[in-house]
């Protein structure tokens, strides 16, 4: 099954069927584009408005990627700190949890008061992306095989050797799993931030285009922007999956036979 072309054809077939059904619903009910545009109309708008939409897509992508990079740096660094001193973990973990459980949409207006629009959107994206990296990396650093740890002790390994040659490789698959979740969340955070900022009349990301199109009842453009956001999410997910595969394919169960 894994090598069969059906594996690729089936999902595309289902997707194509859904789009055809959508086109048929529009056509048969004679729906106006401001209620539900036909797929062809969305594509047409995408091409017509490509300059504006792709510029917005780049803005959103840039915010997401920067937030993700900062989340990786912050999350991994804090996880290392947690692993080295329990007291740091006890002190800081509740704060990380509070950041995680408070809905970012509720925090965004506050960010917009204190920060510039760009910075506020970035912080929103960072807040949601940070936690999975932190918690997964912390879990990974704690999942060291106790026998291997004993072996390192017997061999007289230094703290640094144990970290670099035992703890970090052990944590790597966990970290990459967290990264994949964080990638999707960073995009959500960026979109939420943009919508919050957009309602304040600023911003130029894809989410702002959606809000703007909704106000102007430019529904085909709303759909086109939505399509591009999905595409951005898919790109990020595919990129991170590829990274994970490249790093783990030789040894980790999660990537064995995954995409032979």
């Amino acid at each position: 099954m894994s090598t069969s072309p059906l594996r690729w054809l089936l999902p595309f077939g289902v997707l194509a069927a859904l789009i055809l059904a959508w086109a048929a619903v529009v056509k048969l009910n004679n729906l106006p584009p401001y209620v539900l545009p036909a797929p062809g109309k969305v594509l047409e708008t995408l091409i017509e408005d490509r300059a504006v939409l792709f510029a917005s897509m780049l803005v959103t992508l840039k915010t997401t990627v920067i937030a993700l990079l900062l989340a990786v740096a912050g999350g991994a660094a804090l996880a290392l700190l947690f692993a080295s001193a329990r007291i740091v973990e006890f002190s800081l973990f509740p704060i990380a949890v509070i950041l995680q459980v408070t809905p970012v949409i509720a925090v965004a207006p506050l960010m917009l008061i204190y920060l510039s629009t760009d910075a506020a959107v970035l912080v929103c994206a960072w807040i949601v992306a940070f936690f999975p990296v932190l918690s997964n990396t912390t879990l990974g650093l704690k999942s060291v095989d106790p026998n291997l740890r004993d072996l390192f002790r017997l061999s007289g390994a230094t703290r640094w050797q144990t970290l670099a040659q035992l703890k970090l490789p052990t944590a790597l698959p966990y970290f990459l799993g967290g990264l994949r979740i964080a990638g999707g969340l960073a995009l959500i955070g960026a979109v939420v931030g943009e919508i919050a900022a957009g309602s304040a009349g600023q911003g130029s990301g894809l989410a702002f285009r959606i809000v703007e199109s909704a106000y102007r009842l430019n529904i085909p453009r709303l759909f086109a922007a939505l399509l591009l956001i999905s595409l951005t999410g898919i790109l990020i997910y595919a990129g991170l999956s590829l990274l994970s595969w490249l790093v783990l394919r030789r040894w980790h169960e999660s990537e064995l036979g995954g995409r032979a």
Partner: protein
Amino acid sequence: MRVPGMNAATLDLLPRAEADGAPLLRLSGVGKRFANGVTALEGLDMAVREGEFVSLLGPSGCGKSTALRLIAGLTEPSEGRLDWDEDETARRGRERHSIGFVFQDPTLMPWASVFGNVHLPLKLAGVGRREAEPAIMEALELVGLAAFRDAYPRELSGGMKMRVSIARALVTKPRLLLMDEPFAALDEITRFKLNNDLLDVWRRLRCTIVFVTHSVFESVYLSSRILVFRARPGRVSAELVIDPNQPRDETFRTSPEYAGLCRETSLALARAMDAP
């Protein structure tokens, strides 16, 4: 009852007089209590002699693995002493690698190749890949895995992983090899093969082996001496000596001598488990 091939089968003979073989290390009155209140060992007296293959045999939870970890220095005794002979003390001052340890699980690093896994103890001691290569290849030759140097652990069978684990313990040319039920998780056919290969390694390297097992048959087949442990608290309750010059092969495994030794050992184990 005297059994051919057995020099002495003695019970409750502790502490025993050390007449033969220079002791490499001696545990005297060693006790170990864990933080949770469990007493793993109490009043343990035993010695390991240069060049011998000694098995620690006993039921689960009798503290034999704890004894092994004490010898390795992975845990400290709560009471009693652990004395190394002077040579060994001097040697351990200079270099840390006179002990090899083999765990029940192969305990390999999945992210490293066979070569990388065997390299580990030397790498941690600061010996680079190129410099360590002859020693690594020699250890891999010993366990018959030289052809698999670039394979990853997941590509190997259980028996092969165990061989890699043994090669890793041998790569530093340890004077003392500690093995904690290394073959317990393997099928019998693989285990027989590894038993023979281990004896071969022991004879060729002339190292000392302390082997923890719960298999009577395995301990009789491998050892020159068996220490039978009793549980709660763990201590040695019997000692059996088997002529180390006795050839160990499939003929031995099917011989009446072997059967007699197994019977004797089983009885000693049964007595150890019945002891109040």
